[in-house]
């Protein structure tokens, strides 16, 4: 069985930063793995400018940010294992890695989990009705728009005014899509106010506060939703063809669920807690990497 001092799962902003920081502090025996072909995590699909003000003094796009971290990583020489899934992590400090090249077991002294977060799905919400085609998470649409150059047509409704909801509203609008509204359950916009001003306000897309989706309609395809105005209790039928959910992120800790918190396990970035800014995930990851050294 192969062995390393530090295994890092996930090569997004946090994983790359933790790896680089550990390397800078003298750890040489590092293995960084990711299920994707390239490092960067979710950054490559975040094509808008809005990252790195704290670290770089200027705003970069997601791909630029990823490219910076990735070149830093390449210079340091940390071995990166792409297209590799970690199937399990055992309490005896081994991990089972799977790729097309084979299954391998890797022993480690320390593990940094940097698996990011996942989006909550509509199934977690108290929304009844059918489950037709045409319902996506904001991240799925972001991937289609920015990595696959594919945009939805028809009337689009966005549920949730967190940063991802606001950004997608703006980007879809700019791509010529018909975003009819962003609906938000709470009394104020869920995302950063700078994202509201940058992405939503200029488009004129209405932000419907204290409003939520209660029912999805349509057999094969989405035909509309029922909205409820929470203050009046009034129900509104809204025709739409695409429903995008931006209803929160959940740290992805599936791999360590049964492990408890042994001292060799460290969490960095959004799998620890969801960071509003990439810069803060990077700073956290750098100190996690340094602390192990």
């Amino acid at each position, binding site marked *: 069985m192969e062995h390393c001092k530090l295994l890092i799962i996930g090569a997004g902003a946090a994983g790359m930063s933790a790896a680089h920081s550990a390397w800078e502090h003298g750890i040489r025996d590092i293995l960084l793995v990711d*299920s994707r072909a390239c490092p960067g995590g979710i950054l490559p699909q975040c094509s808008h400018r809005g990252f790195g003000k704290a670290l770089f003094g200027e705003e970069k796009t997601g791909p630029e940010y990823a490219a910076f971290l990735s070149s830093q990583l390449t210079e340091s020489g940390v071995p990166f294992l792409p*297209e590799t*899934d970690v*199937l399990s992590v055992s309490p005896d400090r081994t991990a*089972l890695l*799977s*790729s*097309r*090249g*084979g*299954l391998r*077991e890797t022993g480690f002294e320390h593990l940094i989990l940097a698996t990011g977060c*996942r*989006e909550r*799905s*509509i*199934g*977690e919400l*108290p929304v*009844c*009705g*059918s*489950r*037709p*085609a*045409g319902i*996506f*998470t904001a*991240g*799925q649409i972001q*991937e*289609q*728009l920015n990595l*696959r*150059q*594919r*945009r*939805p*047509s*028809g009337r689009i409704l966005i549920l949730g005014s967190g940063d991802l909801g606001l950004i997608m509203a703006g980007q879809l609008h700019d*791509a010529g899509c018909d975003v009819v509204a962003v609906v938000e359950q709470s009394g104020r916009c869920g995302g950063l106010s700078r994202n509201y001003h940058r992405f939503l306000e200029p488009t004129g897309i209405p932000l419907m506060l204290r409003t939520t989706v*209660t*029912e999805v*309609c349509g*057999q*094969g*395809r989405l035909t509309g939703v029922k909205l409820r105005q929470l203050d009046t209790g009034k129900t509104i039928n809204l025709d739409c*063809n*695409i429903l995008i959910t931006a209803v929160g992120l*959940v740290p992805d800790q*599936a791999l360590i*669920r049964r492990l408890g918190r042994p001292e060799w396990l460290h969490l960095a970035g959004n799998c620890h807690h969801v960071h509003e800014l990439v810069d803060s995930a990077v700073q956290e990851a750098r100190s996690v990497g340094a602390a192990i050294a």
Partner: protein
Amino acid sequence: MRHFDVCVIGGGLLGCFAARNLRRWHCSVLLVEAREDVCTGISRANSAIVYPGYDHKPGTVKAEMTVWSNAAFSRLCEELDVPFSRCGSLMLSYGPNADAVLRRKYAHGLENGVPDLRLISGREACQLEPAVAPGVSSALFAPSAGTVNTWELCIAAYENALQNGAESVLSAEVQNIVPLSGGYRLETSAGSYTCSAVINCAGICAHSIQALAFPCPVTVVPNAGDYLVLDPNASGVPSHIIQAEPEDAGKGLTAVPTVEGSLLLGPSERDNTTDYATAAEGLDFVRRYASRVFPQLSIGDTIRSFAALRPNPQRPDGSSIRSFVIEQPAPNFWSLIGVKTPGMTCADALGAHVAAQAASFLQAEANAAFSPRRAGITRAKLLSPAQRRRLVEQDPDYGEVLCRCEDITRAEVLEAVRRGAVTLDGLKHRLGTGMGACQGARCRQKLTALLARELDLTEEQVTCSGGDSAVYGGFHGTL
């Protein structure tokens, strides 16, 4: 026009098991399914319970067939290579009215021959199942109850029928049945076929199908039930099937720890519906009731909801029929109408029953070459690391995980396509893709691309569940 000895209409549990059992005899069989895949009608959603058989009056067909089928279920699942969990069930009472119901069911169960059935004290019930709320006054413990994945069971029966020589035609809606001398002509949206006998297993439409050729004295009046599914990592979850019997009039609650590890909660009961949309009041009922019966349950770990339809058989005067209805309007035409609970438990027995009658009509001889065994798709996640390593060495596709939540590899997805999956639902029904916490958000693009490639479609043509449900319907390039 091709001729078959028997045409089976409907590719749900009953139709697939009828086709399977018909091949125990020397007769040619065509399974005719209206949708793009099997297991797409009412069979696709139910409580997933293999019932022990105490719910029915002694001496009825349902009572006898359920007890017999339950006893045979381990062997059936072993033959068909389908996971089956005989987890046992506890029916709970919280008061004198429900106590009386349990005593009656216990007496029925004893008379029906339900094995190891015990009426136990509330204290013993709470020891057996610490997840339930205290205050249980008595419980009916049926160790023989179990749970199975209805999709896998249905598809396994279908594959076993095909591998024994049955044929199938999909996307073939039966539009007309013309009686001929010595048989029928089935006119479908995918061409016409003649046959000597018909077995009608058309589920919610079974009465309309019979009405194409004969008067039908039974109608199916569907009602719906809403269910919630909780993530396998939810806490406060029971390890047995729990059925809370209501103390007052109304519906109880059932909780099923599924073979996949998720928890199924439900069903509510709603009338006047024919589609699979859930209703807010139904889901609320399930949520509230579940929190009462399982005080520690992390109901926030709900990952999806769905609705199931019950095909309730009724006479022309509107009165309901308690039994399974097997109509035989002609010596060579059988209709299974209104087969609801415990239809999945009895599917193989019902299929065997009508198949035997058809074989007798056809004077078909036993088929010595019939094999009841079918091998499922090799599931990487169920293997030891050493076995899995060898598999990846033989086929690198086993090394590439496509659905991360459920640990499903590219090789498994390709195998499901080879076995007939043509939609995202087809993959889900065969493998469980997209059933985990992310509900497909992370694998949908990859699965769509793979289906498109394997089926020679564009990604925009791949559907969730056939018809107009294109995954990326209406998407256009931005370049």
